[in-house]
């Protein structure tokens, strides 16, 4: 009897000790989010094993993305240049505005389908999504802040300490955790539900101009703007005359190779309807200007892409059909997805944003 009691007592003690030791981890329970690869798409390149997306990490990333305190004067959150209604580009701006009334040197790219992207920036200078936010954060003409001071601001905020703990297990706030949380938010921005996608899935059909446009696209654009991402992620000189103020040599700045002079990453055509102006320095204010460039103004230099040596012959008729097709790449469900709106947006209004509602009625 005594023996049984002793064993029982010891057992209770051990179980108690184990659960006490484990109790530190008890509150750290994350909820994995499913990342769905759209039907027929390639495998993403982002390493989800290293940074699994959780609801807690996603929520933290979303708060960071919309928080002006990540910039020096607290006026420039990531979202100031990456606006959801512009597919996370800067709406109607050739160059974006940064700290101290400065301009950026290039057109802000839209953010979507970044899980499939290996290199970032127009020149591909950044080699990992988790490192990408550091560039705008520290650049003097963007957010103008330094990392130490961003971390200090976050550490001083109890809400952040709570959210870092929920996402990563303790309230240690580091650069790594900050940018991984941002990645968790950004990597979930998948745009794959445009009319084009619905047609490909057999749920919808093109009208005549869209179908003719798709045929022209496949003959004249597809080799660089490859489906389904509508870019092959290569760097090419599209024959744009160098801007004599910006003097931007593009990819050559990173590789120091003269063969890369004036080359820039091929941008995706998805959501192009809302990402105007176009081009690495936003010099084209409309799709029509882009088309005119390709049929009329391509500069043939030593690094101009071999596919563009003589421009792209396009008739007015073809341009009309191409535009009709490009508009089918607008993904209104992505542009209005409440998950990517500012935190708390769901509670403020049940209405869709007023701007750009016309996108629904294409």
């Amino acid at each position, binding site marked *: 009897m005594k023996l049984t009691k002793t064993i029982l007592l*010891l057992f209770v003690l051990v179980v108690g000790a184990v659960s006490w030791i484990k109790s530190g981890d008890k509150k750290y329970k994350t909820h994995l989010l499913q990342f769905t690869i759209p039907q027929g798409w390639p495998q993403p390149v982002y390493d989800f094993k290293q940074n699994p997306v959780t609801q807690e990490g996603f929520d933290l990333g979303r708060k960071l993305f919309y928080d002006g305190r990540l910039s020096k004067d607290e006026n420039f959150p990531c979202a100031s240049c990456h606006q959801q209604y512009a597919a996370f580009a800067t709406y109607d701006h050739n160059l974006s505005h940064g700290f101290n009334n400065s301009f950026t040197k290039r057109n802000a790219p839209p953010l979507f389908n970044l899980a499939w992207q290996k290199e970032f920036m127009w020149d591909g200078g950044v080699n990992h999504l988790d490192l990408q936010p550091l560039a705008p954060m520290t650049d003097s003409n963007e957010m103008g802040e330094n990392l130490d001071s961003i971390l200090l601001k976050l550490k001083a905020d109890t809400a952040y300490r709570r959210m870092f703990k929920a996402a990563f297990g303790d309230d240690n706030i580091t650069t790594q955790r900050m940018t991984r949380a941002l990645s968790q938010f950004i990597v979930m921005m998948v745009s794959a539900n445009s009319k084009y996608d619905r047609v490909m899935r057999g749920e919808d059909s093109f009208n005549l101009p869209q179908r003719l446009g798709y045929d022209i696209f496949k003959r004249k654009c597809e080799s660089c703007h490859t489906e389904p991402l509508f870019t092959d992620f290569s760097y090419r000189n599209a024959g744009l005359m160098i801007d004599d103020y910006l003097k931007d040599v593009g990819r050559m700045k990173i590789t*120091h190779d003269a063969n890369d002079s004036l080359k820039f990453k091929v941008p995706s055509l998805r959501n192009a309807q809302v990402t105007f102006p176009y081009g690495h320095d936003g010099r084209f204010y409309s799709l029509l200007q882009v088309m005119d460039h390709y049929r009329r103004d391509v500069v043939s230099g030593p690094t101009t892409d071999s596919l563009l040596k003589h421009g792209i012959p396009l008739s007015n008729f073809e341009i009309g059909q191409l535009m009709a097709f490009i508009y089918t790449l607008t993904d209104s469900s992505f542009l209005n997805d409440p998950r990517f709106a500012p935190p708390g947006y769901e509670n403020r209004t049940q209405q869709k944003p007023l701007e750009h509602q016309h996108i629904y009625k294409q």
Partner: protein
Amino acid sequence: MRLHYIFIQLSNVAMIKREVGKDFTFYFICFLLLMIGNNINAQKISIHFQNKAGDKILQADSNYQNALGETFTVRNFKYYISNIVFYDSVKTQTYPDQYFLIDNADSASQQIELNTSLKNVTAIKFLLGVDSFKNVSGIQTGALDPAKGMFWTWNTGYVMAKLEGNSPSANMPQHAFSYHVGGYKQNEKTAKEIILQLPQKINCTNNCVITIQADILKWFNSAHEIKIATTPFCHEPGKLATILADNYSNMFSIESAK
């Protein structure tokens, strides 16, 4: 360690079921001895980096002169040390995934302490800089946290070493010169493998200390000649960075080993 502890605790319970409570104390004491024993077993090697300008200790407020006769002061001197390997006559011991940022302004950073199981150490090898793997593996933390300021955000990559200061010869605002040396890609590599033979074999059973000198004068004149007057700054990977890296690969020597 905790898991280990729990495991032993649980196996204790199983034992107790058979052997009754009296043996518990015995196993618990054994366990404690094991824990203490683990700690006693660890012998340590300390590496001490001593930054110098020629034969003088490098200090922020002193004037120095390079072989080309240019005088200068040094405001900031930092470099990464990684991939350390110790050699004894037969074995090696490696320290993968350990990165250290040596900062001339922070004396604690100049001491690296490592556990070793080697009895006699004859040589040390390390990488001055950060291997290319860590340059392509996304965001890092600890010594490799980009917030340490040894990282290029616009053209991904670590600054392997930084030397900054002022010199009347520098044709720049405030007569400042600054060398930020990095680059990991083919033809732009700046991380340098350094092998230093110890003057004599050292016995590390009772801990040992290797003091390594880093002479900044070698930055200006060893494999190549670098004039502050004509080359006051380097802020990106490329040709100049690799030339500076050739130079700094010659800056280390063993001062003492005991």
